């Protein structure tokens, strides 16, 4: 593992709960790991699996989705849709060789600033333990190399 490895996490936080929680963590001057790049979306249900795949394709070490608790969705059903996609996408990612710890969904309400801190810190710790993501080698074996094998 390279020295000073800092995992990069792309975080999709919903406008009504988790983004406000992150805001609360900030105004309450809570300190937590600076590894997330937060993208505000209107709802966790707005997170298209293509966003997650693109983040991983471009080299993110982890993707975190934050939404309202079940029953609290501003749009009533959005977070349930996010939950169903999360489980299916997680299994797809596993089949593609991306470890489970790298993709996470959390329910964090607007009042839970401290939970943003705990979740982000915990995820960063787990990703540090995993180390940088193995990226796909574009290199194909040279002809001579193959002939020799």
């Amino acid at each position, binding site marked *: 593992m390279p020295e000073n490895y800092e995992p990069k996490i792309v975080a999709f936080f919903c406008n009504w709960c988790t983004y406000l929680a992150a805001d609360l963590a900030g105004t309450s001057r809570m300190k937590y790991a600076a590894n997330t790049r937060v993208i505000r979306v209107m709802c966790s249900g707005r997170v298209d699996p293509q966003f997650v795949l693109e983040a991983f394709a471009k080299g993110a070490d982890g993707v975190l989705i934050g939404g309202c608790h079940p029953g609290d969705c501003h749009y009533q059903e959005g977070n349930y849709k996010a939950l169903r996609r999360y489980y299916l996408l997680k299994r797809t990612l596993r089949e593609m060789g991306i470890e489970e710890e790298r993709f996470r969904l959390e329910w964090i309400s607007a009042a839970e600033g401290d939970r943003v801190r705990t979740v982000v810190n915990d995820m960063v710790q787990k990703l540090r333990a995993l180390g940088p993501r193995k*990226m796909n080698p574009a290199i194909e074996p040279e002809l001579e190399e193959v002939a020799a094998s």
Partner: protein
Amino acid sequence: MSEKAKVAFYWCASCGGCEEAVVDLAEKILEVSAAVEIVLWPVALDFKRKDIEAIPDGGIVATFLNGAIRSTEQEEMAHLLRRKSKVMVALGSCSQLGGIPGLANLWDRSAILEAVYKGSPSTVNPEGTTPQTAYKDNGRTPTLPMLYNTVRTLDQVVDVDYYIPGCAPAAKLVLDAVETLLSGNLPPKGTVLAPDRALCDECPRRDTRPDKLELAEFKRPHQIIADPEKCLLAQGLLCLGPATRGGCGGLCTKGNMPCTGCYGPTSRVRDYGGKALTALASIIEAKDDTDIEKVLAGIPDPVGTFYRYSLPASLLKRKTLEA
């Protein structure tokens, strides 16, 4: 007499089904062959590589290339035909999206050779012989093309002008494409020569699809006797029609089988599997973690289901190899 337009057909990593799509033109093929001169078609006519090399660059009006690119020879031929052709058409799922051979991107070269030449139960190979790219024998050195670790789509190797989707493409799409190209009235580069609407739009079962679909479980085709008229999704079968481009006329759904997605995405979608997965996950009825996982157990192989024809064209392109 003016010279006829030169057209080439070639195949790379594919099964030959796309050749069938061309043969399926039936009598229409006579009209096509009256209008064009076929300069290469390995499945039917005896032309050699040197015949193509002798044609000046850009001398072929259009090459229809089916199959994905997964060997050195296929890559060389793709480059050669690209240089010789004014228009390059990716014919069929493999060429457009990677197709079934693209699922090899879940493994690598050595794992594939190991499974095929040593591991499979029907293989008898006591000496453990595997294909070599070169072999010395009595002063001669015959060679074979090398298999790559990663299967690629045609447009990941050479510039592609048009795409004809499908596994295999409907004969009508091939005919329409040939006619379009010969008319000289060319659509914008990069166009997929099929309707840009989801399959549901042309499915004969369309009107039986409920406004709100809610599935309690996924069933596999052998587990039920499907009603021949009712929407297959509504019957719990994993039908990819909502996420898949139309153009086939619902061949599978007419045959009481769910769509498996061979026509790939519409123009608004970047990653077919990601979108198909969204469509299917969203209509699950369950709301809590355990129940959702129970329903999803009905999809034992998500990559093989949602990326059946498009893994090399997906955002992730292949499984991460161990270092």
